[in-house]
């Protein structure tokens, strides 16, 4: 799975969780760019991403992730 594919699948997950078909993710996307992405929705998002890629994020990763790019890197390293 290359980065573009990961970003595409992540895009689908984000659109589902936020119920917003207009979302277009890039590596630089952060919580500031998506209106409903607060700390509580972050929980749902993480769970959905974990289910999509069959991975578990480490606790410190969940809280220190700064943008979608960092999420993509972890997925690339961990997903099979």
């Amino acid at each position, binding site marked *: 799975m290359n980065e573009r594919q990961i970003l595409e699948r992540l895009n689908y*997950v984000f659109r*589902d*969780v*936020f*119920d917003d078909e207009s979302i277009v993710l890039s590596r630089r996307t952060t919580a500031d760019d998506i209106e409903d992405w607060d700390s*509580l929705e972050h*929980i*749902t998002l993480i*769970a*959905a991403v974990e*289910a999509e890629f069959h991975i578990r994020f480490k*606790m410190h990763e*969940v*809280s220190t992730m700064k943008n979608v790019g960092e999420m993509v890197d972890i997925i690339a390293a961990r997903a099979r």
Partner: protein
Amino acid sequence: MKELQYPFDSHYILQKKKSLRRSLLSDGSARFPKKIAVLGGSTTSDIVRILELFLLDQGIEPSFYECEYGQYEQEALFPGDDLKAFQPDLIFLHTSSRNIRNWPEASDTPGVICQKLADETSRFQTIWNSLRDHFHCPMIQNNFEAPFFRLLGNADCWDLRGRSHFISELNRALEAYAREHEDFYISDLNYTSADFGLSRFSDPYYWNMYKYCMCLDAIPCFAHSLASLIKAIFGRGKKVLALDLDNTLWGGVIGDDGVSGIEIGQENGTAQSYYEFQQYVKQLKSLGIVLSVCSKNDEENALEGLNHPEGFLKPDDFAVIKANWDNKDSNILQTAQELGLLPESIVFADDNPVERDIVTARFPGIAAPVMDRVENYILHLDRGGYFEPASLNEDDLKRAQMYQENKKRDIERAQFSDYGEYLSSLNMEAEIGEFIPMYIPRITQLTNKSNQFNLTTRRYTPDEMEAVMNSPEYIGLYGKLTDKFGDNGLVSVVVGHIAGDVLDIDLWLMSCRVLKRDMEYAMLDALAAEAAARNISVIRGYYFPTKKNHMVKDLYESFGFTKISEDENGSTVWELNTSGYTSKNRYIRLL
């Protein structure tokens, strides 16, 4: 909505919660608004969002108040202005074993542990009493789930120092409180967590990271169970179980296999599974759920199958039997009409998904659980929570018998050419009086469940009914009706509010079981007498149209009231002078 029906996909619900909410809110169905205050000892955010979905699916439109994180105790003891202004219809205390203050220690003496238990119990009792004093509304309290580790292993359950034992004792105290207080309900977190799988449920990751007392995946199961209880409290439970026969109540197809070929009884695993299912269905009947048959079979074959010597259910267990080759949706509609109920009161149990779709497409409010394999029938019906009672009363327990008696009345009716003679022959007797404490639960239940013969469709909590009973400004009347075939129980409720010399009728309803018996005239006579005794000169009646109460549109006219006004929605106001009132009841003897 299929996605919210047990067994559901937790991931799917969690991920799609926003779009599911959007679909539900735009489906055009009418819902009852209810205000629910959630006081949590852990994160409540997604609990509430998912609970909302299940409640919307049950015809309730909730608005929520969530207290500040973890502040359940503070908010309960010193309710803030926001909570007071919210005026909840229901308060839910979302606590868990994570909120236990003082666990027993290995070095504690029995005396110390006893005190710890008493302290924890009284802490919660103080919370409930404070909430009751401030809000007078139903309260739901989670009980406590088993600890996720057992320091004492198997001894943890009986040794006083074991946390498992401590939790059990605490739950016993909650249960005793529930038995003693009508406004207090337990949300059985202990059962839901076990049903889900305790080790996954209590995964510490979710507490330590997010302060959720359960893993995310468990939230839909928990919320669904809670929604079943809430809908029961608000009178939205289902009343009828309509059952298919072939491969639902027995294995095989009786038309093809013959009565000796169907599988039911003790002979093999399959037969025993169907037998156990029949036993479960009979137990539902004992709670007051009405059973009916809806089968594509010749009636002769259907009855032969139900008379199978090794079957547990018999034809007499069913209030209505529809065995024919008509479409099942028509049969369901007729069944509802014969019972005097709306189709939405029905749960349709059929192993054939095509039949389920036909019925639910025509009546979206009907529940049709997945019936894939006989081993799962009880599980799916049970977890669906369709028939969960908020409370059980005498009328519930005798309901099946009441429908049986109604059948006899119908047969008798057919023998009279004059309807008045038929009514006379019934030897009806009514007990009509002002509310008394013993009848408040049944009065409240009937008020919240009646939709058709209901002039204003106003809902009341038990507290509000008690207030009516105790206030000199209100007249609350109940009516019970018996005849030579049996006791119909409590069947009518009227509530009026006195303002000067005018009585405004806030509530007038009657059970459809006793339509066309003139019971409404007996109630009117009693109301008029009560009004005259209090020097009321005018009685004012109101009709607020809904999709379901068209049958009472002209009730006040039939009573001799004069229409005063009508608005563009069809709501009408009527008036009657009490002077010169003449009795209208001709066939019912008053006790």
